[in-house]
């Protein structure tokens, strides 16, 4: 009885709102076709493209991270190499400076030695010249003394006189 009552209510309501099987089934089919076509031709390609794009973005980000890490690694290696180069350069500079210092010192010593040698040579030359000049002077003095003596005394000096005068002059000069 209740079932008949409910069925009657449902039937009346359906009739009032124009619900009937042909139209209901028609609308079900219409919606089904729309949903199927959208699913097949609109959602699938778009979701596939979105998924591919998402994967590409993820790959791109991963690549960017990897490149960043590699860049950091390269930067560290570069910095390390730079530090080593700096250290080596500093060491080389220090060594060059030390070598230059040694070279300068050596050259100084050599120069000093050469100068001393030159001075010694100059001294020797001076002494030789002095000796030569003294000898010439002595000879000249002997000649002058002999000549003066000859002129003053008015006699011709003998070899013996010359020898004696020369000895006396030499003795005087040496004193």
């Amino acid at each position, binding site marked *: 009885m209740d079932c008949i009552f409910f069925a009657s209510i449902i039937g009346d309501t359906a009739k009032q709102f124009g619900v009937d099987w042909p*139209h209901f089934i028609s609308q079900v089919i219409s919606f089904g076709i729309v949903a199927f076509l959208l699913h097949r031709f609109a959602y699938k390609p778009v979701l596939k493209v979105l998924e591919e794009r998402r994967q590409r973005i993820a790959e791109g980000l991963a690549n960017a991270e990897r490149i960043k890490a590699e860049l950091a690694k390269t930067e560290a290696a570069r910095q390390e190499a730079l530090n080593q180069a700096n250290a080596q350069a500093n060491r080389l500079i220090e060594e060059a400076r030390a070598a230059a210092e040694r070279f300068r010192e050596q050259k100084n010593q050599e120069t000093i030695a050469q100068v001393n040698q030159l001075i010694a040579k100059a001294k020797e030359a001076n002494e030789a010249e002095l000796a030569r000049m003294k000898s010439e002077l002595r000879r000249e003095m002997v000649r002058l003394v002999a000549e003066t003596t000859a002129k003053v005394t008015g006699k011709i000096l003998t070899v013996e006189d010359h020898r004696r005068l020369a000895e006396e002059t030499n003795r005087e000069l040496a004193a």
Partner: protein
Amino acid sequence: MSLMKSIVAGWLLLAAAGALQGADAGHAAVAPVSGQSEHAEHHALTPDAVEVGNFLGLRITNSMIVTWCVAAVMIVFAQMATRKMREVPEGAQNFWEWLVESLHEFLEGIIGSELVKKTFWFFASIFIFILFCNWLSLIPGVGTIGWGVPTDTGVQVQQPLLRGANADLNMTLAMAMVFFVCWTIWALQVNGPGGFILHLFGPKGETTGALKLLMILVFIAVGVLEVVSILFRPVSLSFRLYGNIFAGENMLEAMASLIQEPAWLKYAAGVVIPIPFYFLEVLVGIVQALVFMLLTSVFTLLICTHEEGHEEGHH
């Protein structure tokens, strides 16, 4: 931003044009229908869709025409948007991608990534189809072009050529029943027949002894109520959508014909008064599409979600 401006401008134009069509509601065109002059004073939309033709024995109603038009527009647009997919989307593809991606993310947030893979086609179609139906039904001409009878104040349309697709209970009930069938299939796929029954009638919580026996009886009774609730879901879903859209169309028509005298004020009022209500109907259109999709997705989530106790039992 420019897209949003375009949409707002478009809907402003639509609202204004709709107001104009409302003003002309009594004068729309048309061939009088014999034998219907006794209904000439009846302004409101009829609860059922009106038959406007016959094709191979199937009576074609005005709401079916709108349904097919919307379906055709959607399919053509989707086909256009996805025909030549490009790496860098533009135009229709950009809009369609935005729509599909937004819906996918939204649904994924509600029902989870696994369930959304299986059910996205249905919820997205429901939302887009209802939204298109609701908004396209606001275009001037829907409900005002058709067959009518001459009256003192103009021609009164009795058989409109077009009617909002969701202002027909057949359409909303069809979607609700399709959901009901899909829901049952998904529930059985996820839970299995035994799990499905257990999900409905099985006791929840950890109890032992006599209390467990009592809980079993209580949950069997709760399960019966749950079954009744589930059986009534198609009714509530279909009547909610139908009621909102049907009431909205009636309200627009009532607002357009609110003032009948004098004649000059009738036209001015017919233009101005419905404008805010057109904006309201634009809002109602999207809200109802959202509500239908949300409710169906939450119903699906509820039946496809395992409780911890049950999950242990399944494993």
